[in-house]
């Protein structure tokens, strides 16, 4: 029996290694002293861990500021997208109306939007409305980039919650809004959280617009823009580069670790139904 499982176990281990190793290598490099990083034979364990690279990354010009900017833009965009998407998802999942199919189709097509191609027209629009060099413009764009996917996913979650629950509450005399808040919302919470993650990652990562629309107010730059100029800031210092990448990944990682199980199970429930 043991032996029969061996190929399976080996396969599992190799999947595990392939998925974890790159991230492990990043974190490990971030903690290695430069001497070890440049050694001809790499070490796979932190024999002399050091915080030097993190110190370099954090003390780099503006790191804290850019981190804050990124967080601000991302969180506001995701919250707005959740609120707007929830309304739309409810209309699609629970109501019959003319134009519903067309709306769903549009939402799906919206996911295909070639965002990088809209740089110039977005630049012109921002300029003509005085929104250039403003973080709020980035928030708006990120809100829109995450909205279609958020609607699709939330709708799946909603569809997975039996309408009978609401109907029962309504029969007990609650209004539709109250029924939604008391009955559906608590059941939807995990779905909301996991959906917000996709939005968070998308917005947290965005580079092209952040680079093109923040021109003169350099204090309003976001982390990805800063991260992209690494080679200029840290040069051959791969340790500091990896430390900065680790710090860049940190918030996403934390949220994921907290929510991971809800994310996977929740998403499937919705996806299958939809």
């Amino acid at each position: 029996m043991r032996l029969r499982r061996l190929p399976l176990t080996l396969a599992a281990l190799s999947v595990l290694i392939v998925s974890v190793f790159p991230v492990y290598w990043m974190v490990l490099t971030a903690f290695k002293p430069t001497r070890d990083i440049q050694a001809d034979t790499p070490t796979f364990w932190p024999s002399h861990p050091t915080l030097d690279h993190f110190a370099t990354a954090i003390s780099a010009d503006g790191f804290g500021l850019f981190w804050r900017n990124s967080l601000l833009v991302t969180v506001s965009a995701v919250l707005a997208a959740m609120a707007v998407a929830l309304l739309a998802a409810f209309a699609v999942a629970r109501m019959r109306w003319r134009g519903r199919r067309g709306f769903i189709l549009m939402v799906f097509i919206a996911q295909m939007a070639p965002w990088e191609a809209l740089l110039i027209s977005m630049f012109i629009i921002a300029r003509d409305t005085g929104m250039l060099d403003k973080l709020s413009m980035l928030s708006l764009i990120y809100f829109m980039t995450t909205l279609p996917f958020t609607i699709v996913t939330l709708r799946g979650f909603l569809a997975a919650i039996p309408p009978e629950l609401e109907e029962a509450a309504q029969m007990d005399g609650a209004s539709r809004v109250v029924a939604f808040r008391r009955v559906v919302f608590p059941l939807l919470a995990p779905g909301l959280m996991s959906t917000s993650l996709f939005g968070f990652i998308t917005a947290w990562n965005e580079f092209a617009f952040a680079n093109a629309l923040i021109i003169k107010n350099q204090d309003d730059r976001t982390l990805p823009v800063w991260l992209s100029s690494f080679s200029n800031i840290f040069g051959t210092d791969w340790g500091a580069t990896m430390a900065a990448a680790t710090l860049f990944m940190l918030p996403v990682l934390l949220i994921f670790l907290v929510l991971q199980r809800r994310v996977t199970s929740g998403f499937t429930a919705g996806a299958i139904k939809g």
Partner: protein
Amino acid sequence: MTSRFLTATAVLALAAGLTACGSTPESTTTPNAAADPVKLTVWVMRDSFTDGVISRFKTGFEASHQGTTLDIQIQEWDGIGQKVTSALASNDAPDVIEVGNTQVAEYAASGGVKDLTDKVAELGGTDWIPGLAEPGKIDGRQYGIPWYAANRVVIYNKDLFEKAGVTAAPKTRDEWIEVTTKLNKGGTQGIYLPGQNWYTLAGFIWDEGGDLAVKEGDQWKGALDTPQAIAGIGFYQRLQALGEGPRDSDEAKPPQADVFAKGDVAQLISSPGGATAIEKANPELAGKLGFFPIPGKTADKPGAVFTGGSDLIIPEASRNPDAAYEVIKALAGEKFQLDMAKEMSYVPNKASFAGVLSGSEGAAAMAIGATNGHATPNSANWAAVEAKNVIKEYLTKVLTGGDAAAESTAASQVITDILNTKS
């Protein structure tokens, strides 16, 4: 669009400066502008100047211009075309921008740059180096104000030369290869030459009598496939192999000064100002850096070099054009020019300032190299050839084992196509 005038004047200026060592002092006091507090944004390119030069300028300028504060922002070369264009097209652009002399014409032609023709006299424009003044001028109107110029030399580590028993700087290519081979032993790299340093390749091609592209009638033709150009890349390949420069990268990635600063690299091709960056990265190397002009094919003529430099522009969209002009006046004026020339070993924007470079070993090497200075093909589309990295990728292909004959034909065709597109 680098002008060919640059070379000659730079040489004259340097020669005059090195021998005469004097310049007419010129009043740099400026009348204080309006008392309204203004904050000006100035864009300077990465590695153009040391922090010291910039902070001295900022302090001095703010002290003499009450109510004006300067926000000097360092810009990355990567993607700079997009950035400057966006800035010119915005409603609230930076007030002063540094632009390379190969790019200034393109921006000036776009209509987003302020016409400064009526200031030329006040700035003493008759004395400007033409290689910086000409590209900034379109149809007789001056948009770009000359700032500084430089060309490449070889920076070497004196300790490593001594250790290898090399006593004299090489004068010819053959000597150079011989010396570099000798240096390239043990843990030492003979030369750190990244694979995509295409300005250096251009120099080798010019040495052979070739060019990057030639104009026949009104049609351009990529010329990397000529026997001269093939010989040029052949030499590049021999030299590049005498060190561990990455074949798929340029001098900015990683910054070559940082690599050299580690102390195990014997030679580097850079503008003399690179020495300042090296000493900053590793103070132990201070005083141990030497300079010599890039060797030519024969001892009587130094290797050909690309003459580069920068101009300053004020965007039309600047909200404080008058105050911005005060900044340009100071940056192009004697005090700053002398200070930066001394620290960076750049060629100042006026011949009369060049005296400050006397006694500088780097500047002396640069002056010799400048006698054989060249420019990139004079086409408005040349910027597109650079933007598409045609020559860089060609270099990488050949250095990683590609067939030079076949690859050069393909690359030349691409250059031909780009240069002949109508914009």
